[in-house]
Structure formats: C-alpha cells, structure tokens
C-alpha cells in the first residue's frame, strides 16, 4: 500500500532532478521526515518528559529497594501525576516503522542492481511516462555507486556516527549502574551494528540513513533547545554529593565554560 506510491514518487522525483537518484533519495527522505514530524515530536517530548522524571524515579528506587510492589505502585502513581505514558515514545516509532521500511524497500527496488530486480520493478511501476522513461536510474552520485556497498567506509562511519550523536543527545546520564550499563550498551550497539550493516547494503540505502539521522539530530536540537546530553558526562557522581538532590546536570542549550567546583 505504501511501497508502490513511494517507489514511483522516488523515480519520478529522480526524473525531475535531472536524473540524479542521490538527490531524489535526499529529497524524499526530507519529505517523509516532515510528514512524520508530528509523530517524531510527540516521541521526543515523551522521551524528554521521561528523562525529567529520572531523579524522582531514582529516589523511589532507593526508598523502596526492598519492596518491589510498593515501588511499582509509586512509580505508576508518579507517571499518572506527571501525565506520562511510559510507552509514549514507543508507539510513534511503531507507526513510523512501516513507512521507513517501505522507503528503504523502494530505494532497493528503484536501484534495480540486478536483472532480476529490474524485471521485478516492472510490476510496481505506474503507467506514467516520466517513470517508465526514467528507469533504469543513474546509480552514480558523488563518486558513489548507489547500487553497490560503499567500500571506502565513509558512509559506514557517517551512519554510525550520526546515529550515536542522535542517541547520545537524548540519553540522560544515570547514577544507577544497571541503567548506566543499559544506556552504554544501547549507545554503542546500534551505531556499531548499523555501521557494519552499511558495508553489506547498497550505498543508496546508507545515504538515506545518513540523511534521516541528520534530520533527526536537527529536530532534536530544536526540540531540546540545544545539544541535549551530548556533552554531559556519561557517569554521574552519586546523589550524596551535597548538591541538594540535583543528580542530573541540565541539558546544555549553548556551549558553556566548565563549572569550577568550590
């Protein structure tokens, strides 16, 4: 339902953009991200609200460390008072996933790197003449062959790097060792995995990921009013630091000078 319209739009866009498929990928990615912006903003706000609750959550965990039932009730009460759904950042992502998968599939199909792919493509094209005449697409873009994996590692590093930045911006440092461990694992594993997968996928798909991540970073920057937790230390000092219960540093809106401890 989504794939054929996206696929034909991608090919038509390529035809409009002087036969440049790389530009078409960039433009369509921007367009899809703009359409999904309300969902993305909702997801980010939910994540932000969850992060703001972290100090109180950690206090509750310390207070009711030995009473799990009481802890669960207090946590649920805290969410309810704050008007937060703990899965509020998840369902927007679930809705977006089919669209991302359709966009990625349409890029793969449009490239039609093999005769089998080209034959299969014929059954997905509309009868628009600007579409049938554009195929097969010009797979060269900025020295890359979009139909083949990029063996220079540049795209792999860009995909992994932008993914890491995007995640780091929204990942609050944690004093709890278990939480910290989970955060570190998520921060590292996803960029590494995607960076490795990029070496196996056509460069056109990697280009889509890079552009999508950069847009995600830009949206995050404007929603958070800055770089978020990008420059925050990953490990926090324990709560008994004499700071009056303020365990988390505020996300930095602008580059600041180092705080000098008295």
């Amino acid at each position, binding site marked *: 339902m989504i794939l054929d319209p996206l696929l034909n739009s991608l090919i038509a866009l390529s035809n409009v953009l002087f036969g440049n498929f790389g530009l078409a990928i960039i433009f369509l990615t921007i367009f899809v991200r703009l359409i999904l912006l309300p969902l993305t903003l909702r997801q980010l706000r939910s994540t932000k609200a*969850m992060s703001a609750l972290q100090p109180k959550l950690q206090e509750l965990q310390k207070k009711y460390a030995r009473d799990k039932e009481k802890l669960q009730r207090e946590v649920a009460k805290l969410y309810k008072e704050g008007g937060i759904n703990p*899965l509020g950042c998840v369902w927007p992502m679930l809705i977006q996933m089919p669209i991302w*998968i359709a966009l990625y599939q349409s890029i793969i199909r449009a490239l039609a790197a093999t005769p*089998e792919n*080209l034959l299969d493509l*014929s*059954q997905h094209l509309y009868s628009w003449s600007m579409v049938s005449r554009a195929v097969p697409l010009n797979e060269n873009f900025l020295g890359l062959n979009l139909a083949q994996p990029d063996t220079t590692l540049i795209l792999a590093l860009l995909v992994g790097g932008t993914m890491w930045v995007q995640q780091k911006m929204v990942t609050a440092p944690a004093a709890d060792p278990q939480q910290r461990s989970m955060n570190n694992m998520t921060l590292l594993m*996803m960029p590494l*995995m995607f960076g490795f997968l990029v070496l196996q996928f056509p460069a056109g798909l990697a280009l889509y990921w890079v552009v999508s991540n950069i847009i995600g970073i830009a949206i995050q920057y404007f929603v958070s009013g800055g770089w978020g937790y990008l420059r925050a230390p990953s490990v926090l000092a324990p709560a008994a630091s004499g700071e009056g219960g303020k365990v988390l540093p505020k996300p930095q809106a602008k580059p600041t000078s180092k705080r000098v401890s008295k």
Partner: protein
Amino acid sequence: MKQGKILLILALLCLLGLGVFGCRGTQPQGWSGAVAYDGILYIGSMDGNIVAVNPSTRSQGLSFPAEGEWACPVKFSGSRGQTACASAVAQGNIYGTPSVAEDFVYVGVCDSKTLEGKVFAINPSVRIRGIDFPAWTEGEWIYPPPQISGTGRTQFGAVVGTPVIAGDTVYVGTSEGKVYALDAEKGYCKWQFELEGKIWVSPAAQDDIVCIGNFDGELCALSTQDGHLLWKFEAPAAIASSPVICDDCVFFGSFDRCLYAIDVDSGEEKWKFQGGNWFWTCPLVDGDTVYASCLDHKVYAIEVKTGKELWQFDAGDPIASAPVLVGDLLVVASQSGEVYVLKAGSGECERSISLGIPVLAPIYAREGIVYAHAKDDFLYAVRLQTGEIVWKFSLAKRGW
C-alpha cells in the same frame, strides 16, 4: 530502564526485519536458456556452471554425467571491489543462452557483486575428458584473459546477453556500455565500440551489420568490419529487449512499452506498437508476423509490414521468457510456470502445461520436445503433443 529495553528490542526487530525483507532485493541467479548442438543441450545453471545435457540419457534416468555430458564451473577469482566478507573465488551468474559454432560453446557470464564479466569459449571434447578449464592448447579461451583482468588495465563489464557468432567473430555487449568483436578462434579483441549506456541485451548480426541497444535508449548499427557506427536510432526509453534482424527490419522492445520496427539500412522508424508494459524479451519473426511477449501478461502477433495487431493472448502473468515456434504452434512460458501452446495463426490456446515453477529463461524446442529452464534450476522436457513432462533434471551443483 524498561523503556530502554523496549527500545532496544524494537531496534533489533527492525534490523531483523531488514534482513528478512532482503536488504538487496532479489538475489542474482541468472536465467540461461538451452541450445542444442549435435544432440547435446548446453545450458547455464543458476549456480554458475555450463552444463552439457544429453536428452537421451536423461530420459533413461542414467546418472550424471553420462555419454556426452559434462559440467564446467565459471568462476571469478581475486575480483576487485569485493568486501572483506566475500569469498576469494566467486561463482558467475549466467543470464544469456550459450551459443554454439564450429564445435565450440561460447557463453558470457557476470559477477553480480563486482559487475565484471567474461566470455568463455569451451571445447566440449576437452570437457568430456575432464581436463581443467581453460585448456588453452585445445582452443579454449577466456576474455579478458586472466593476466589482464584484475590488474586495472581492462574493465570488462558484466555480460547479461548472449554472445552472437557471425562468421569467425563473437559479438558481445557489456554493462560498461561497450560492444566487443572477439576472434572466435583465438579470443583476442578485433575491435570495440563504446556506447554511453549500459548494455544488458544480446546483439543481432546479419550480413555486415551488428545491432545492439542500451539503457540510454540507443539502438546502434555497427559495421562488422571495424565497428564504426552506421546509424543510431534513439528510443525515448531504455532498451532491455534484444533486437532481432529479419530481412530489412530490426525489431526490438523499449521501456516506453513499445515494440519498434526500424529500417536496417537507414535506421528510420517504420512503425511502433504500443503494449501495456515493457517488451522484455527478444521478438520472434516468422514470415510476415512478429511475435512479441510482454510483461503486461500478453503475447502479441503483429504484422511485420504495418505494425498492426493480428491477435493477442493473455497468459494471466507476466511473460519474461522468449517464445518459440514449433511448426505452426507458438510455445510461450509465463512467470507463473504455465507453458502455453498456441496456434500461431490465431493465438488460440491448444493446451497449457503447468510446471508450477516460474520460468524466466528462453524456452527451446526440438523434435517435439520443449525444454524449459525453471527458477528451481531444473531443466524440464515437455512433450508438445501431450503436455507430458518427459523428464526433469537438476542443473545445480553439477560442476563444483
């Protein structure tokens, strides 16, 4: 923390989904048709072998290889541009049907990962003896030869079409947009001509002209003597259908969903016929009728002189396999694996045979038997009169 775990699981599911959906689309396999010479069928398998099949021994169910049978793997080694995960020796993909001339079998292959190609000249009498390929002293050769390929001095693109032999020359087009004329006996390059767009079709040769089309929509006629351009016809869309020359006309299909008839001497358009989708296969000409199968599920019979439709037959599924004429019967296979036997004069369906497996390769007919190479890499022999599957033979893993 719970949220983090959920996000992590979702991300892993997403990655799994990418793997399941196939990050590169359909894997390359090839779709070589069969050709017969001296009682033996020659065909390319989907795992990169040229296989010689003796229909007589197959119908008796003898073990392979029996009399006259052999398999020769086509390999690429030390290819450029491979990732660190790729094996050092890769199998080739064979899309074109082998050509046979002067007791030699010629085939073009491609490495879909690196987009390199080669042309092989195989001596069946040497293959039967099991000597390693190529036996240079027995007349076998590879182009480009191993001492040149892989050094960066020669970029020979993937060969997706069938090499065509005319006289003592092998003509082949490659994905780098070049047309090569190779000496059939020694394997050296006589001349080459460069077009702009990728070539994924077989050339057509008649008298002193060789015609070929490319993805830029150019149909070029070259002189067989030295490869100079005689004329060029520009279609509005890419050409992936191999041209056929008959008398004074060249017929080919284009991605603008049209079948074209071009004057072979002047390159002027005589007529064009509009279909519902791409004309993917090579048209078939018999007398004053041209038969063209189309990805709009139909086979069309068109008058050669005027381009007027005589009849059409709807197969219900896309037809990617070139049809074949057996007497007054036209045989065509659809992508769903149905083989239709039509009356060539009217398009009326006499019978249909269900193989159940998609057929993309050109079908071949000889002595009342139709041979179809299906997507399961089996070669099916079907008796035309009764529709009975006489035998089927797996082409996979014969040469490794």
